[in-house]
């Protein structure tokens, strides 16, 4: 396909997409004019039925928990993908980080970043745990809190160095959190099947709306997903960081001669 033909194909396709987009957007309901019945129904029944004051979490971890399980395993698959793509290949070897340009001045991590980063670690962990644990009451939940917790690990890297990060979050711990979270979420689903009638049925006592120990299994799902997300993100971060220390072998890789 010559560039000229390609441009024509793009122009036709782009024009078609543009027309359909305009057509679609013009048919949308006005802002604030919700038409579907489900949102209104859920807003009415979720609090009395599930003792859950954050309806979004009630939907995610109860009414359509099996979809969330699928999403959870998207992240799991991504982590497995990163782990298998970035594994140490036979012609690669790790090396100690040595200076490739010994003459240059190495910029020190500024004191401002060190102090701010170090000071932020504890509050970040606290906020992350809060967001996970209060997912059934206020906006947030396992996913959001999990990502916040993973950034706490990143803060240790920013304010100290890679080795400190590995000490705070060793790979074994991260992998264990990821695995335990993923399995735990499935087990919660199975609990519904064992003690109730359907997968992810909310079989625990519902409690009083607004209390921390309410909404039955939903907080437990949040903790499981929080563990899995923290582990998943932390694993990907440390794998990517590790990559900057991996050296390619001289025998293969990009250096191959062309055909």
């Amino acid at each position: 396909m010559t560039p000229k033909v390609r441009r024509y194909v793009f122009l036709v396709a782009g024009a078609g997409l543009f027309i359909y987009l305009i057509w679609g957007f013009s048919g949308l309901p006005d802002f604030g004019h919700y038409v579907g019945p489900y949102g209104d129904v859920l807003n009415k029944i979720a609090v009395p039925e599930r003792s859950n004051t954050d309806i979004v979490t009630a939907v995610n971890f109860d009414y359509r928990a099996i979809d969330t399980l699928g999403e959870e395993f998207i992240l799991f698959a991504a982590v497995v993908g990163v782990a298998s793509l970035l594994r140490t290949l036979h012609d690669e070897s790790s090396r100690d980080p040595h200076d490739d340009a010994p003459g240059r001045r190495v910029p020190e991590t500024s004191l401002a970043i060190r102090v701010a980063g170090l000071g932020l670690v504890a509050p970040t962990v606290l906020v992350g745990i809060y967001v996970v644990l209060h997912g059934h009451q206020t906006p947030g939940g396992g996913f959001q809190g999990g990502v916040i917790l993973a950034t706490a690990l990143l803060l240790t890297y920013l304010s100290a160095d890679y080795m400190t990060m590995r000490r705070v979050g060793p790979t074994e711990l991260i992998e264990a959190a990821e695995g335990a979270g993923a399995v735990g979420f499935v087990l919660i689903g199975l609990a519904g099947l064992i003690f109730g009638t359907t997968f992810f049925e909310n079989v625990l006592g519902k409690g009083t709306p607004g209390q921390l120990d309410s909404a039955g299994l939903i907080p437990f799902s949040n903790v499981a997903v929080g563990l899995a997300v923290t582990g998943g993100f932390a694993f990907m971060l440390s794998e990517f960081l590790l990559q900057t220390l991996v050296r390619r072998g001289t025998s293969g890789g990009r250096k191959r001669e062309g055909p």
Partner: protein
Amino acid sequence: MAAVATAVALTRDPLRQAMVASLYGLVLGVLFFAFEAPDVALSQTAVGAVALPLMVLLALAKVKAMETEDEAEERGE
């Protein structure tokens, strides 16, 4: 919103683009929050403003490390 999105597309240097994309993620999070979707706003801020730009930065660091390595090999070191 549209201005920041355009800025992301117009920034050509990947390093700067990661920073602008982070700002875009933050602005989009604020927009979700303003439209009364705090759950999505939290996810958006964490992923769009932190996680995504971070992955880009790490990939850039790796690419740069590979380039210096190649240069060192070409010099016969």
